[in-house]
């Protein structure tokens, strides 16, 4: 399996924080940074480490690129631990070491129908994807989430794409969501490509249905990473060829039939 991508433009830069905004609670954070010199493919990510971290926390954090405009690089982050908490408290003007864009990103054609399945924070890479898509009418998005919808960048998705959001607060909600997910995949399998990003349990369910209905599906994995450049071997995923490949440099977007989740 060799889909390592060459990206001559990837490099490490210090970028300044422009603003930090919150959606809903302070646990959902939008970080806007000065725009980097590179361009990206939706689904690619960056490694993010504030200059102020010095010796602790040691690791940078990998984040999907939510959106990149001429004015800013935007990341959408949920506070889940010490690192993300510190990030949510960054102030405008602070330096952040950023390297990327990393990974392969999603591949899709503007003139083909696409079904996007996003779970929670898995919506992040699709914001840029949908907003820059040439024919939003070809996009169908199903968004499963736990926190209130206002926590996520859902409303800003293009008006003329088809989108549906379902909140899961209980086991019953989750079971119902799984049924909808299955139905969507079954109906869409022969119509075009499926792209998915979200928690592993969500991806596992999608993988199961996509294999069942032989859908052309691509899953974006979210593994812990220490380096982001393929060196630490801490983020590997096991492929169906029984190889461990680095999620950071070789993927993170896998064909659904090529990876064990």
């Amino acid at each position, binding site marked *: 399996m060799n889909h390592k991508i060459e990206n001559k433009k990837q490099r*490490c830069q210090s970028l300044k924080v422009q603003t930090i905004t919150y959606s809903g609670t302070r646990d959902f954070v939008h970080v806007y940074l000065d725009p980097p010199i590179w361009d990206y493919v939706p689904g690619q990510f960056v490694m993010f480490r504030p200059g102020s971290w010095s010796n*602790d926390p040691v690791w940078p954090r990998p984040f999907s690129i939510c959106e990149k405009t001429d004015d800013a690089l935007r990341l959408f982050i949920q506070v889940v631990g010490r690192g993300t908490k510190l990030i949510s408290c960054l102030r405008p003007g602070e330096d952040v070491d950023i390297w990327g864009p990393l990974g392969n990103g999603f591949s899709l054609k503007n003139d083909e129908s696409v079904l996007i399945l996003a779970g929670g924070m898995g919506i992040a890479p699709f914001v840029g994807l949908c907003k820059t898509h040439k024919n939003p009418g070809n996009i169908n998005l199903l968004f499963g989430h736990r926190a209130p919808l206002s926590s996520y960048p859902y409303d800003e998705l293009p008006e003329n794409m088809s989108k549906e959001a379902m909140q899961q607060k209980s086991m019953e909600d989750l079971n119902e969501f799984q049924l909808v997910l299955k139905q969507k995949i079954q109906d869409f399998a022969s119509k075009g490509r499926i792209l998915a990003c979200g928690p592993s349990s969500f991806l596992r369910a999608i993988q199961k249905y996509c294999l069942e209905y032989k859908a052309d599906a691509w899953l974006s994995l979210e593994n812990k990473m220490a380096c982001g450049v393929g*060196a*630490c071997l801490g983020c*590997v995923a096991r492929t169906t060829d029984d190889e461990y490949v680095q999620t950071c440099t070789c993927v993170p977007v896998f064909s659904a039939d090529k990876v064990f989740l």
Partner: protein
Amino acid sequence: MDFRVDLGGLKLTNPIMTASGTFGYGLEFKPYGNLEELGAIVVKGLSLRPRQGNPMPRIVETPCGMLNAIGLQNIGVEKFLLEKLPLLPWKTTPVVVNLYAQSAEEFSDLTRVLSSEEGVGALEVNISCPNVKEGGLQFGQDPQAAFKVVNMLKKHAGSKPVIVKLSPNVADIKVIAKTVESAGADIISLINTIGGMAVDIHTRKPCITNVFGGLSGPAIKPVALKMVYEVCKTVKIPVIGLGGISNTQDILEFILVGASAVQIGTASFTRPDKVFTLVKDLRVKVEELGIKSWDEFRGSLRLG
């Protein structure tokens, strides 16, 4: 100042090397800096045949450091020599191959293969990996086993300098250091990671599948500095210091206690161009402190 360092046959343009397991096969870092500026490139530990490594999760972040139990996942020596080495600037920057085997015989087979390779600048033998079931650490904790391995390696290494990488997970590091020196080691590097553990009170599971891992990063620097100091006092061969080095001050501290060169490990994860920046910054720091030569500064720690 002349930045060059001569480690008993291994000549470096500056004392900054990369640490095995934190710099891939070197090529991963090509987008972030000029590999030719480094003192030496030490690649990920290689075994005779490819190894898959341990199941996930393999790494966890800890205060000022991290634990890893990768389990020496590597592409095997053959693939390295065919696909990676030719792309590395070995003519200007020595490429040190870190090697791992499960038996003394396998060590000698590996050494034979590597000793005839022009592009290999030195061999670093890993007798200190805490994350594999067989081999590795067992050679590093038992002086007799360590002697046997190093002795055999030297027989097959030809003109290649042999670096022996020591484990800190021993009662007395000086004993092992003395033993490998007497077995013919040309250079000693230390320390490898310190055995450690992390658990999750929510899932009641260990944070890494292997349960135990090796601790690295700034958290281990004081331990490393002590051991490097002790070993430098004990042996006559050159010593490479490593363990938690993240800035130029750390580098000079290791040289002050007697190290001839240093390796940068976990710090490469904090920023992929870290090691390249350190090479540039070290010149500034050395000038600032008025250090005249490495010979004058090395081991010049004042006691009392």
